[in-house]
C-alpha cells in the first residue's frame, strides 16, 4: 500500500479511508496519532469507544442490512461472498466497518496501480459495487445515529467519513440498481397481523423499520416520557416501555421514525435511491406506529 500522494487517482484518496478505518478499531497509540493527523478534537477514549461500538452501534453491515438486525446471518454471508468474488479470502469479520473500508482502499490502490485501462475499469467497477452494496447501503444512517450520541472526537470522525463516502458516491456515479441487501429485506410487519414479537423484532432491525434505535435512544425515550427504564437488552427495554404506556411509547416511536425520514431525505443528494429506500421504510414505520398509537389503550 503506498501513499495517495504518489498515485492520487482515487477520490477520495485511499489513504484517508484507511485512516478512517483504523479509527473504527479500539483506540490505542496508533489511533491517537491518526486522530491527531486528521485534526480530530481530543483523543479517542477507550471507554467511549466501548460504549459507542460495543454497546450502542455495532460497526457491522449485517446489523443494519440484515432482516434480523443482528450480527452475522445471510447479510454477513453476502458480504463474505463479495470478498470471495474478488478472489480474496474473507477475513473473520468480513462485514466489519474497518475491513470494508480497508477493502475499498485496497481496491482503489489496485485501480491506481493498474497500467491496463480495461483492468483498471474492472477494479473501479468492483470498488463501485463495494461502495453501493456494502458501504453506502447502511453507513449514512449509521453515522447519523453515531453523531447523535458521540463525543466531538467520534462526531468529527463520523462527519469526515460521511463526507468521504459522499465524495466517493459522486465520483463513482449512482448505483446500477438497488443494493441486494435492501432489495431482499422484508418490510416492518404489522403486529395486528403478525403478532407483537415479529413487530418488535422488525422495529429493531434497521433495514426493516428504517430507524436505528440504540440503547441511548431508549433511555432518552424513558426520560422524555417519564417512564421507568429497566436495564436489559434493547428488546427488553422496549417491551417494558410499551408495557408501561403503549400509547405514549408508540407515539414516541412514530415521532422518532418521522425524524429518521428527515435524516434519510437529507442524504438523497449523495445516495439517491438508497436514501429513498431508507426514507420510505421510515415513513412506513412512522405511519404504522402512528396508527398503532392512535388505537392504543390509554394508561
Amino acid at each position, binding site marked *: 500500500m503506498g501513499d495517495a500522494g504518489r498515485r492520487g487517482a482515487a477520490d477520495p484518496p485511499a489513504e484517508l479511508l484507511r485512516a478512517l478505518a483504523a479509527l473504527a478499531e479500539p483506540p490505542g497509540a*496508533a489511533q491517537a496519532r491518526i486522530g491527531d493527523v486528521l485534526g480530530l478534537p481530543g483523543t479517542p477514549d477507550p471507554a467511549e469507544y466501548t460504549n459507542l461500538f460495543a454497546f450502542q452501534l455495532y460497526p457491522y453491515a449485517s446489523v443494519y442490512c440484515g432482516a434480523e438486525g443482528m450480527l452475522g446471518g445471510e447479510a454477513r454471508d453476502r458480504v463474505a461472498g463479495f470478498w470471495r468474488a474478488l478472489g480474496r479470502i474473507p477475513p473473520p469479520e468480513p462485514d466489519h466497518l474497518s475491513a470494508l473500508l480497508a477493502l475499498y482502499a485496497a481496491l482503489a490502490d489496485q485501480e491506481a496501480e493498474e497500467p491496463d485501462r480495461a483492468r483498471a475499469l474492472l477494479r473501479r467497477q468492483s470498488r463501485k459495487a463495494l461502495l453501493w452494496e456494502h458501504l453506502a447501503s447502511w453507513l449514512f444512517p449509521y453515522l447519523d445515529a453515531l453523531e447523535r450520541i458521540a463525543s466531538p472526537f467520534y462526531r468529527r470522525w463520523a462527519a469526515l467519513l460521511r463526507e468521504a*463516502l459522499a465524495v466517493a458516491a459522486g465520483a463513482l456515479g449512482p448505483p446500477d440498481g438497488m443494493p441486494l441487501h435492501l432489495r431482499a429485506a422484508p418490510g416492518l410487519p404489522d403486529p395486528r397481523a403478525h403478532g407483537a414479537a415479529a413487530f418488535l423484532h422488525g422495529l429493531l432491525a434497521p433495514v426493516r423499520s428504517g430507524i436505528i434505535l440504540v440503547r441511548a435512544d431508549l433511555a432518552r425515550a424513558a426520560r422524555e416520557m417519564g417512564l421507568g427504564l429497566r436495564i436489559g437488552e434493547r428488546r427488553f427495554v422496549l417491551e417494558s416501555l410499551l408495557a408501561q404506556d403503549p400509547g405514549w411509547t408508540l407515539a414516541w416511536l412514530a415521532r422518532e421514525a418521522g425524524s429518521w425520514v428527515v435524516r434519510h431525505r437529507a442524504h438523497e443528494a449523495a445516495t*439517491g435511491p438508497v436514501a429513498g429506500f431508507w426514507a420510505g421504510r421510515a415513513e412506513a414505520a412512522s405511519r404504522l406506529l402512528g396508527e398503532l398509537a392512535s388505537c392504543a389503550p390509554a394508561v
Partner: protein
Amino acid sequence: MREGGGRLARTELAKLSERVSAARREVEARGETFYPGPSRVHLASYPPKERWDDWVELDSRAWPERVEKRYMLVPTTCFNCESACGLLAYVDRETLAVRKFEGNPEHPGSRGRNCAKGPATLNQVTDPDRILYPLRRAGKRGEGKWVRVSWDVALDDIAARIRRAILEERPNEVMYHVGRPGEDGFTERVLAAWGVDGHNTHTNVCSSGGRTGYQLWMGLDRPSPDHAGARVILLVSSHLEAGHYFNPHAQRILEAKQRGARLIVVDTRLSNTATHADYWIAPHPGSEAAVLLAIAGHLIRTRRYDREFVRRWWNWQEYLAREHPGGPQTFEAFEQVLAQLYAAYTFEFAAAESGVDAAVLREIAEVVAGAGTRLATHTWRSASAGNLGGWQVPRALFLLNALLGAVATEGGTYPNAWNKFVPRPIYMPPHPPRWNELTWPPEYPLATNEMSFLLPHLLKDGRGRLEVYFTRVYNPVWTNPDGFSWIEVLTDEHLVGLHVALTPTWNETAFFADYVLPMGHASERHDLHSYEQYDGQWIAFRQPVLRVARERLGEQVADTRRVNPGEVWEENEFWIELSWRVDPEGRLGIRKYFESQRRPGEKLSVDEYYAYIFEHSVPGLPERAAAEGLTPLEYMRRYGAYELRRGIGPLHEEAVPPEELEDVRVDARGRVYTRSPAPSSPNIVPTGSPEPDAEGRRPVGVEVDGRVLRGFPTPSGRLEFYSATLAEWGWPEHALPGYIRSHVHRGALGPDQMVLISTFRLPVQVHTRSANAKWLDEIAHTNPLWIHPDDARRLGVGTGDLVRVETEIGYFVVRAWVTEGIRPGVLACSHHMGRWKVGEVGQRQMMATVALDRSEGRWAMRQRSGAGPYTSADPDTLRIWWTDVGVHQNLTFPVHPDPVSGQHCWHQAVRVRRAAPGDRYGDIAVDTQQAHSVYRAWLALTRPADRYSPDGTRRPYWLMRPLRPTKDAYRLPGRRTEPVGAPGG
C-alpha cells in the same frame, strides 16, 4: 445526485489524506507500523513489528479460559526448500522455547506467507528421533552401532586428517557434498581457504539441465520471471504447487491470474499446478522442446517477434559470420535464415512428437504471441532434468522470451543475477590451485555443476579416493540414482577414508558414516541468502532464534550450542572451529581467513562476520538501521530481511559510464573491452565471466547502435542465440536452440516399454529434508504408481494392485494408482517417498525397516515393517496411523549423465507388469555391475576435453563454476592453452 462532497470538501479531504500519507511515511521510516495490527486495515493479520518483543496471544490449550501467553517474535528463514521464505519464531517468554512458526511479513520474497513446510519446522525442532549429539560409529560402517563422542574428539580427528591430506599434497581427497543450500558461497570460501577444489553439490541430479540452457543464452544460469506483472505465464513444470520458489512464485502467479493473466502449463502429469492452468498440455515426455520450438516457429513465420530487440540483442552477427560467412551479413539476411532454421518446427511436427493436438498448440502459440514483452516463463527440473538433451528445453523456452523481447521487462523474465544480491564477505580467499577430476571429470567440460552422482563410479574406476568426505544435509544414497553403488563405495574404507555426515536428522547416507554431527534446523543456524523471486533484490537472514531471544533479554551467547537442543551446532561456528584445528598455528595460511579483524589472533565470531557484511556490503542497510537507532546487525536480527532495490529493470540497457572506458577496443561484432579496472562491487553474485581480449583488456559492455551498453555476461555480450562455445567444444550441431530426441523418445522405446516420470515432488514434502515433520508426514507418506486406465486395463491391474516396474538394472514393486491424471503410455511415481532404515536407529515416522541382501553386485531389499505408533516425548507418535511409507524407486535407476550439461536424465524406460508370485510391496532388486555398464554406455556419448578442447583447457573459462580454481588449473595436463575465437577474430 450531486457531485459528492463539493469541490471544497474534496480538496480538504485530499489535503487530509496527504497529511496521513506523510505521517505514515515518517512513522514507517522509523521501522514502526502506522496502522495498528493485527489489523483489518492491512487486510492481513500480522503482529505489528514494534510489538515483536512482547506479543500477547491467548493460549489455545487453555480455552475456554482466557489465558494470556507472551511471546518474543524472532525472525529466521525456512530451511526446508530453497526458497528461504521468512518465518517468525514465537518464543515463549516464560520457557524460552519456540511454540510455533508463522510467516514473517517483513520478508520481501514470501511477504508473510508460507507453505505447509514452514510452520512444520516446529515438528523438526521437536522431532523425538532427531540427532542431538555427535556420534561415532562403533562397529563396521553401516552396521548401525554408534557411540556418543564430544565435539572436541570429532573435530580433532577430522581436522588431523584434513591437515595431513593438505600437507601431503592430497587436497583433492577432501570433499564437501552439499544438498540443501545454506549461505551463498560460505563453504566454498572455507574450501578455498583450505586450497581445496573439493566442493560438490546435488545440482546435477536437480537443475543443471535447466541451468545449462539459461547460461548458454545469457551468461547467467537461472531465470527470474516477473510473474506478478505478466500477461502470459508459461511454465514447463508443476511450479505453482511444488516448483522452485514455490511459495514466493505461487503467490505472484495467482496475483497475475487475478489480474487476468493466462497461465499455460506443460506437464505430462495432472499436477495441482495444471489444475490452475488456462491451458494444460500433457506432451509425451521429452517432446517439450519440440512444442516450444513450434511456438517459436509460429512467432517467426507470422513475424510477430520484436525485430528491434532481436536486432539489438541477439548475437546474430556472430552466427552469420561463423555459419554463413559467404552470405550477406545483414539483419534482414539473418531473418531469412532464422525463418528457414525453424520452418520445420510446425505444429504438425510438434503434434507428432508430443501427442498434443496441433490445433491446441496453435491456440497456445497465439496466446503467447499476445503476451508481448509480458511473457513470464520458467522451467527448472521437470523436462530439463528428465531427458537426454533436456538442457535444450530452457534454451527453447527462453527463445520465446528472446523473440518477444520479454527479457528484463515488466512481466517478462530476468536473468537471475539482476534480482539477487550476494554481499561481499569479510574475507575472500584465493582460488584453489588444483583441479579435482572427481567432481569435474574431463568427459564433461560443459557440465554446469559437479558430476556429483558419478562419484561412486569414478571412485570404482580408480580415478581417485577420498580421505575426508563430508555429506552436509545431503542424502545421496537415497536421493541419487544407483544408491547401492553409493553404499558400495561408502562401505569401502580404501575409497572413502572418513565419511562425516552433517545432518539434523537421520538419513540413509548417514547410516554409512563414521561421524554423524548434528546440525541445526531453520531456527538453529546462521545463513544469509538472496533469491530471485521478483524484480527486486533482497537479503534474508537465518539465525538461531533462541540465541537472539536470550540476547534480547541481555544475555551474551557466543556459542550457539548453548541454546540449541542437545549439542546441535550451527555450521558457521563449526567451520570456523574446524579450520582453526586444521591450521592451529596459522602456518598453512588457512587460519588467517577465520581470524577476527577486531581482535587479531582470536577466532572470528559469527557476530563479527555478519556485522562486517551488513555494515560494509549492503548498500542502504546501515542508513536504514540507523534511522531506527539500530546497528545493521541488530536490524537484521530484528527483522530478518532487507530489500535493497525494487524495479531493477533492464540492466543490459544501462550505458557503461565514461570512467570505465579507458583505452577501449571494440571487436568486429561490437564487444567492448577496456583497460579500466572493474569497480569494486559489494554484490558478488556469481555470473559468467567472459575472458579478456588478447591484450588483457576486460570485457565491459557491448556496442549497440553506437552506444556502449552493459549487455550480458556472455562472450559476445549479447544474448547467445548461437553458442560459439558449444560449436567450439564439439557440439556444433546443437549450437542453436533446438530439439534433441530424448532417451525416452517413443522411437527409442521397445514395444513393451513405457516412460516412468520420477522427478515430481509432493506439495508438502521436499526430498528427505522435510521428513519426520509429523504434520507433513501425516498428509503425504506414500508414492503409488500413477497409471492411466487404458494401460491398467491392458495390464490387468487396478488401483491397489502390486506391480513390478523393471528398469535397466533391476526392479521395484509398488502399488498401482489408476488415474486419468497421467498421459497414456506414461507412468509416474514421486521420488519423495520410500525412506528406509536397516536397524533401530533412524526416523520412525517415515522410514520402513528393511532387510538388505548383497551378493557381489546383486542387491535386494525387502521391507520388514512399515511405520507405526511408538512411545516418545511427543504423544503424537502414538497416533501414527499409517504404515505405508512408499517405495525407494531411485535405487533401481542407473546413472544417465547428459553428455553436454552433465545432468542426470531421470526419466526411465521401464516395463511394468503384475507383480510376480512372492513379490512383496517395496521389494527392490538391483545389479550394480549392470549399473556400471549403463554408466559406461552413457560415458561413451561424451566429447571429452582432452579430445575436443579447442584451447587446451579443461573447460570454457567464461562458464560459471562453483569454487572456480585458478586459471592455471584449467589447463589440461600436458597441453598449452591456445586462444580460440580470439576477440576480433
